[in-house]
C-alpha cells in the first residue's frame, strides 16, 4: 500500500481529570506539518478550592479528583498533610497504606489490561463483544475486580473515595476476622489470575521504540518503591520528594488546560514502564519470574509495553498484598491506634504551620500533592501534579516519531496504532476507552 500522502487526523477523547483531550495531526505531501496533543478540560480548580479548607479535609476533597485513583490521591494527600504537620505515621499505619496501594494497583491494572487494552489486540471495539467471544475470560476478570473491590470495602469502607484512611492514621482498623476475609478473597483469586495471565502472555504489541526519560520513585531499601522514596530518573537523576518541582518543571501550553512537565529533556514517561525500568530488580520474585518468561527487561523503550509492565505489577502487588496480610495476621494489630479526627476539633493531631509534600506511585505514575498551611492547619496554597499531565508531552513526542513510521500501513492500521499508543499510557480509564474519531483526508 502506498504511503498516505495527505492526512488530517483529529482524535478526540475524554480524560478524567484533564478532561477532554484531542490529537491533531496533519500530513501534507508525506510531510508531517502538525502533530499535537491538546487537553481541553473543564477546569475543576481543585487547587484553588482547597484554599481556606482544613488540612484535615484535604484527603476527602482531593480523593474526588479521580474516582479511579481515589486511593492514590488519598495517599498522596495524607502524606503531604502529615509532612506539613510534622506527623510521622506509625509502622502499622504505613503497612496498611501499602496494602491499600497494592489493591489500587491490582484493581486499576486488571481493568486496564483486560477490559481496555486487550480489546485492541483482539480486534474488537470494547469488552462488550468479548462477553460473547471470550465469556470465560470476561467473567474471570470481573470476578478478580470484584474480589479486589471487596478487599477495599473491608479495608477502607469502599474502594471509590476511601473512608477510613486519613491524615494521622486510620479511623477504623480491620478486625482479625476482616484480615482473614481479605486473605481468603486474595487466595480465592489465584486460579482466575493464573488463567488471565495465560491470556496476557499471548498478547502482541507494535514494535516501536523511542528513547525518553523514565521517572519514578526510587529508594535505597529492598522494597519495590510505591508509597515512599525519592524521585529518580533513567538519566541518573535523583532528588528528594520535597524537590518534586525540580523533576516536573510545570509549564502552561495554550493548547492544553492540563499543565505540562519536563525534566532533563523535552518529555518524561511516568507509569508502570518507568517503575519497571528503574526498579525491576526489586519486584517480588514471582513478578520477576514472569518478566523473565516474557523476555521483558529494563530499560525497555517501547511505550506500548507499558501494558506488559502493568501485568508484571499485577503479580507483584498480588503477592506483596498477601505478604502484608499474613504478617498482620501473625503479629496482630494495635487497635488503640484508631483515631477520631473530624477537622481536628479536639486537637487529636498536633497542628503547626507547614509546607508538606506527598509523592506516591499510583497506577498511572508518580503523583505529587503539596500543601502550605497556616498555624491553624488551614490550607493557604495547594499544588497537585497528576501522572497524566506528566505524560502529555511524551505522548506527543511518540506520535511525532510513530506517525512517519506507519504512514505506509494504511489508515485503519494508523488509526488502531494511534489509539493503542494512547491507551498504552492508560491516561485514565475514561479517556482510553473513549472513541477516537479519526478522519483522513487523502
Amino acid at each position, binding site marked *: 500500500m502506498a504511503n498516505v500522502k495527505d492526512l488530517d487526523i483529529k482524535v478526540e477523547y475524554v480524560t478524567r481529570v484533564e478532561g477532554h483531550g484531542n490529537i491533531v495531526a496533519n500530513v501534507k505531501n508525506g510531510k508531517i506539518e502538525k502533530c499535537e496533543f491538546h487537553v481541553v478540560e473543564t477546569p475543576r480548580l481543585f487547587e484553588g478550592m482547597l484554599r481556606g479548607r482544613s488540612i484535615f*479535609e484535604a484527603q476527602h476533597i482531593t480523593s474526588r479528583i479521580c474516582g479511579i485513583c481515589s486511593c492514590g490521591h488519598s495517599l498522596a494527600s495524607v502524606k503531604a498533610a502529615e509532612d506539613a504537620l510534622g506527623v510521622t505515621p506509625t509502622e502499622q499505619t504505613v503497612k496498611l497504606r501499602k496494602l491499600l496501594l497494592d489493591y489500587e494497583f491490582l484493581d486499576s491494572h486488571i481493568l486496564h489490561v483486560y477490559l481496555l487494552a486487550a480489546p485492541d489486540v483482539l480486534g474488537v471495539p470494547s469488552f462488550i463483544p468479548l462477553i460473547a467471544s471470550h465469556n470465560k475470560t470476561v*467473567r474471570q476478570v470481573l470476578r478478580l475486580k470484584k474480589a479486589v473491590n471487596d478487599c477495599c470495602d473491608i479495608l477502607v469502607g469502599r474502594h471509590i473515595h476511601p473512608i477510613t484512611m486519613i491524615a494521622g492514621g486510620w479511623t477504623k482498623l480491620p478486625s482479625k476476622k476482616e484480615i482473614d476475609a481479605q486473605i481468603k478473597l486474595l487466595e480465592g483469586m489465584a486460579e482466575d489470575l493464573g488463567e488471565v495471565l495465560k491470556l496476557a502472555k499471548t498478547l502482541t504489541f507494535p514494535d516501536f521504540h523511542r528513547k525518553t526519560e523514565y521517572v519514578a520513585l526510587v529508594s535505597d531499601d529492598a522494597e519495590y518503591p510505591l508509597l515512599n522514596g525519592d524521585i529518580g530518573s533513567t538519566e541518573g537523576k535523583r532528588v528528594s520528594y520535597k524537590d518534586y518541582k525540580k523533576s516536573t518543571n510545570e509549564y502552561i501550553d495554550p493548547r492544553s488546560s492540563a499543565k505540562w512537565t519536563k525534566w532533563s529533556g523535552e518529555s518524561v514517561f511516568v507509569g508502570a514502564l518507568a517503575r519497571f525500568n528503574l526498579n525491576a530488580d526489586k519486584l517480588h520474585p514471582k513478578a520477576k519470574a514472569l518478566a523473565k518468561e516474557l523476555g521483558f527487561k529494563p530499560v525497555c523503550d517501547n511505550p506500548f509495553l507499558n501494558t506488559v509492565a502493568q501485568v508484571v505489577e499485577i503479580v507483584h502487588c498480588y503477592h506483596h498484598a498477601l505478604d502484608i496480610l499474613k504478617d498482620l495476621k501473625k503479629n496482630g494489630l494495635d487497635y488503640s491506634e484508631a483515631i477520631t479526627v473530624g477537622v481536628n476539633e479536639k486537637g487529636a493531631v498536633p497542628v503547626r504551620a507547614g509546607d508538606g509534600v506527598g509523592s506516591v506511585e499510583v497506577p498511572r505514575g508518580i503523583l505529587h500533592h503539596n500543601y502550605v498551611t497556616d498555624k491553624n492547619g488551614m490550607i493557604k496554597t495547594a499544588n497537585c501534579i497528576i501522572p497524566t499531565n506528566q505524560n502529555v508531552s511524551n505522548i506527543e513526542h511518540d506520535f511525532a516519531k510513530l506517525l512517519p513510521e506507519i504512514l505506509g500501513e494504511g489508515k485503519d492500521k494508523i488509526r488502531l496504532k494511534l489509539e493503542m499508543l494512547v491507551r498504552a499510557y492508560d491516561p485514565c480509564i475514561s479517556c482510553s476507552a473513549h472513541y477516537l474519531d479519526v478522519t483522513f483526508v487523502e
Partner: protein
Amino acid sequence: MKTAKKETKAPAKAPKAAAKPKVAFFDFACCEGCQLQITNFGELLLDVLGAVDVVEFREAISEKWDGDYDVVFIEGSIGDHHAEERLKKIRARAKVLIAYGSCATTGGVNGMKNGFELDEIRQSVYGKDYKLFDSTYTKRVDQVVKVDYYINGCPVYIPELVEVLKHALRGLPYTVPDNPVCAECKLNENVCMYERGVACLGPWTKAGCNSWCVNNGNICYGCRGEVKNPAKNAANDVISKYNLKPELITKKFEMYNKCKEGVK
C-alpha cells in the same frame, strides 16, 4: 436563580417493558467514580447488561449511538459554557434523565468553586493565562435541565442505584427518603460522632447511604444534600450542647452544598 423543584415525578414517557431500554451514561465535571461503581458490580454487571441495551458508556466501551435514549445517566456538574449546551442537547434526546451522584444532584465538591470570585480562583490555578480555559460557576444538573430521578451520594450507594434504576425502567416514581442520616446511623448502633468529640453533618443530611462514612469511623460530610426540613431547634441544641461555632457547620456543609445558594 430559580431552580427546578427536587421532587421526583413519574416521567411522562416511560420506556416500554417489552423492548430493551436504551441506556446511556454521560459525564461532565466530576471524578467519574460513580460510573466506576457500576464496573464494581462484578459478574452481576453481565446480568444488568442483559436487561438493558447500553448504547453509550464512555468509561467502559467505545460504541456510539445517534438515536434517542430511553434512560440517560448524567454524572458531574456543569462548569463551562460548552457543557451546558451539551447537556441541553442530551436532554432533548432523552426520555428519562437521571442525575447521578453528588456532582449532578448537588454540584458536589465542584460547588466550592462558587465560594470564590470566579476570575480570582481561575487565576490562582492558571496564572495570567487563565482566560485560555473557559470556566463558569458550578451548576447542578437541575439548574440547567429538567431531572426525572436523583441518585445522591459521593460516590453513589449501589443498593440505592439499583432501586432507582428499577423504578426508572418501569416508569415508576422514586422518592429519595427525607430522613437524616442519623436515622440509619442509630440503627447501625454507631457511637454518635458528637459524643466522640467531632462535628458531623448526619443530623442535616439526607439518609439513603446506610450511614456509610460513620459506620467506618468517619464523619458525615453532607454529600447527599440537605433534608428538606432540617430540625432547626434540634440542630441548634446540638450546636450549643457541644459548644460548636455555627460557622464550623456551615463551612463543612459548603463542601458539597454550595450550589444550593444558586449561581451568582
